[in-house]
């Protein structure tokens, strides 16, 4: 009895199935290795370092590796910084909603109403055309558009709709919102379009045949089936908006202070420990937002 079992064990040890499994596993590790090494060296270690530095002692022009909670206490007790968190969250929510409101109809049009795959691709590429110029140019181009003597004010005054130029358009939170929505909208459009384009045409016909009107079909079929796209788009937009500083820096006239702007200015004045605190806070917020987003839709089920 024992010998039989041993024989079988020996026989299966070098069986082609076992060898194939081993080869597949080795190949998986090889594919994974560069990514893992990269992430450890340039993400995990620096993150740990940032957390560590946030507890260092900050003097006027230097940081010393003596552990203290001083930077944390200063951050948490300062209304400026706490309100920066508020501003960051407020701008994130508004930009997220704006990109969704502007982006979803575009995605719906490309994914559902354009039947031709070539035209679909062409339209998606058209959405990316603004990215052919640099980030800074895209942002700064809003100045001649929104300024007191900018295009919008000029047109409105020529039409006689207003007599005084609107001043809230530029160097305000409004201009930051407009700029960010324009830049990040495409990251919402892409994933939603792909999800909607995957919906089988016959499914929509079936729903119509069962008596449902267009709006019911949108609410009951298209919207639920496109939710994974909305979540992926929302994660893209959130991650980018929460870490933003450049749009605020060039369009807000220093009136809007995001966590990103604080980090930039603190690093600029060599306040490393303090910048590290803001960095940790920002990372915690982004992690929380992504976790929340993934809770809403089970992406594993949808992929």
């Amino acid at each position, binding site marked *: 009895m024992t010998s039989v079992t041993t024989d079988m064990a020996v026989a299966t040890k070098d069986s082609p199935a076992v060898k194939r499994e081993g080869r597949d596993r080795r190949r998986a590790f090889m594919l994974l290795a560069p990514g893992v090494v990269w992430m450890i060296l340039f993400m995990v270690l620096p993150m740990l370092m940032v957390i560590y530095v946030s507890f260092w002692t900050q003097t006027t022009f230097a940081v010393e590796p003596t552990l203290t909670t001083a930077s944390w206490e200063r951050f948490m007790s300062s209304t400026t910084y706490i309100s920066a968190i508020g501003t960051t969250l407020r701008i994130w929510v508004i930009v997220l909603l704006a990109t969704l409101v502007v982006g979803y109809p575009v995605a719906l049009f490309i994914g559902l109403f354009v039947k031709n795959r070539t035209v679909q691709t062409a339209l998606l590429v058209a959405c990316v055309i603004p990215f052919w110029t640099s980030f800074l140019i895209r942002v700064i181009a809003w100045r001649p558009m929104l300024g007191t003597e900018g295009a919008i004010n000029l047109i409105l005054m020529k039409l006689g709709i207003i007599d005084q130029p609107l001043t809230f358009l530029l160097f305000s939170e409004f201009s930051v919102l407009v700029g960010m929505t324009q830049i990040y909208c495409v990251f919402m459009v892409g994933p939603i379009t792909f999800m909607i384009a995957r919906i089988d045409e016959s499914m929509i016909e079936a729903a119509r*045949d*069962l008596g*449902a009107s267009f709006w019911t079909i949108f609410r009951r079929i298209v919207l639920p089936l496109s939710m994974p796209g909305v979540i992926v788009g929302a994660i893209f937009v959130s991650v980018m908006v929460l870490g933003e500083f450049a749009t605020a820096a060039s369009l807000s006239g220093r009136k809007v202070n995001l966590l990103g702007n604080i980090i930039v200015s603190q690093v600029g004045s060599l306040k490393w420990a303090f910048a590290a605190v803001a960095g940790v806070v920002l990372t915690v917020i982004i992690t929380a937002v992504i976790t929340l987003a993934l809770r809403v839709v089970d992406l594993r089920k949808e992929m």
Partner: protein
Amino acid sequence: MLKLNGITRRYGGTAALDGLDFTVPDDTYVSLLGASGSGKTTLLRLIAGFEEPDAGEIVLGGERLDGKPPHRRDIGFVFQNFALFPHLSVQENVAFGLKHRETGAIASGSELTDRVAAALDLVGLTGFGHRGVGEISGGQKQRVALARTLVTEPRLVLLDEPLGALDANLRARMCDELRAIRERLKVSFLHVTGSETEALTMGDMVAVLAQGRIAQAAESTMLFHQPQNPAAARHLNAWNLLAGTVTGGALQTPVGRLPLPRPLADGTPAQLAVRFDQIDVAEPGAVPPGQDHFTARYLTGEFNGPTTLSFFRADDGELIQVVDHMSNPRLPDLEEGKTYALHFSPEAALLYEGAA
């Protein structure tokens, strides 16, 4: 009763349907038989309202349907790929029409539950309501698709190759069940298929769609025994067609002169149709008296279980098929490449006027 009058549908320059007239009677199982690309799916889509005809009218129970959007036509459509909603459970799929239709939506939860349960009972899926549509087999998906359509009590049910996605075993069983379900509901089914056996099995009435028109619509045995025209005969995949011209009181075909079942004027083009199972094979020169015959070379045989299909090539290249039943064998042992006399009783032949 559904009446189609002069339905035409063009795609670009080509007409998929060309002045089609057709009537689907009440309380009848109608099979629509057509080759792929014959426009049979187009016809269903026009009736359901997913497309509109370029000309003609669609009338159901005295009411014009064309021009109405699909969700106001009250017609059921069962898709070949089932088109179930993947994010909803079996129960929610079946309830969709009742709950979300534009007019007459049912709000009462208990009525919904009851009617969905009754529909699932009808298709033999009792207790499957809570499953996800990804967790059931192809045959069960087919039943869910059927229940989802039937629960809304449509005035007519269209089935687009409903058995195409099922394996052979399941197909035979669904055939019986579809007929049984229809008989219980007393609503007409219009079942589109490319398979002549499926069409003949399912249909109380079978309609043959060819060249954008209905070639013939008749009760299934009637259609099988008496196809009215070459197009209908060809689609049944059971008739050999021999084309020729009438000369001197006989049909001059490339395989030889064949007597006419009824007299036609000289010079008339005509076709003779003989069913696969009504041709006998004999050595040349050994044709029994009173039988018409022509000669052809035996190519090969195809063993199909209870029947054998033998292929012959006539001198003009025409392929002739002969069916032999295992329980009642008529054919001698055939030798490949040898020429035989194929003979048939003059009464077995059908004559069609007109060129092939």
